């Protein structure tokens, strides 16, 4: 049974990444917890990953605040090229 729960660091960090988006399954989380018992490196990765997630979330908020638009000149250029295509 425990053999099925044993995972590599690559798999553990993949689960950890998935978990940052709340998309790891309960079975995945159990495997991750068991992996942490014997792997300090992946525990550190997870701790740092949590910090990075907070940073990315706040970066995401500020990115979403700015809504990119086309300038009037760019729209005019679009109109001209579309007219040319129409012939």
């Amino acid at each position, binding site marked *: 049974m425990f053999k099925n729960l044993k995972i590599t660091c690559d798999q553990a960090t993949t689960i950890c*990444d*998935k978990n940052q988006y709340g998309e790891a399954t309960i079975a995945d989380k159990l495997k991750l917890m068991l992996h942490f018992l014997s792997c300090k490196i992946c525990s550190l990765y997870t701790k740092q990953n949590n910090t990075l997630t907070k940073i990315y979330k706040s*970066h995401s908020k500020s990115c979403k605040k700015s809504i990119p638009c086309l300038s009037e000149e760019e729209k005019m250029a679009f109109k001209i090229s579309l007219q040319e295509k129409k012939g």
Partner: protein
Amino acid sequence: MAEEQIVLNTDKWIDNYADYMFNYAVVRVNNSDLAKDLVQDTFFAGLKSAKNFQGKSTERTWLISILKRKIIDHYRKINSIKGQAEVRMNFYNDGENEGNWLEERVPQSWDNQSEKAIENEELKSQIETCIDALPEKYAMVFRMKTIQEFETEEICKELDITSSNLWVIIHRARTQLRKCMEDNWFNI
């Protein structure tokens, strides 16, 4: 009651849809020039296939479906470019150590972690630099999932990839970004 047939009005396309379509494209490809090209190509393609428009959807929905196809084509193009910068491996990929951390890629402790995590312009700029250093397809998927916060299912549908493919990309992108932030922000 007969359904109202929608007719294309190509003279109004730019005024009515250009901003919406540009916004749609730029949040996905994160490149303003590329987004403009994709939108322009979409209008041209729309014009070319206008005779195939059956009037069953709105003009905007129809144009967006063309734009979506253009975005998938772009993703496939960047996915197939040979010789592009790949993400560096972080784990042994064969032998008895398969799946274990490569020694030179093992995470190091960060100095003043909480202090360095405080939001400021410099930090934002460093995040952008690290994302831009990723191979384009990794950056695109990472941005859609993490910065634009799209649902996994939506990204898979829009880029025509499987969810396991998406998680491999996210995992590789995040491990690479962690290392980049460690070397250029947390431990400098």
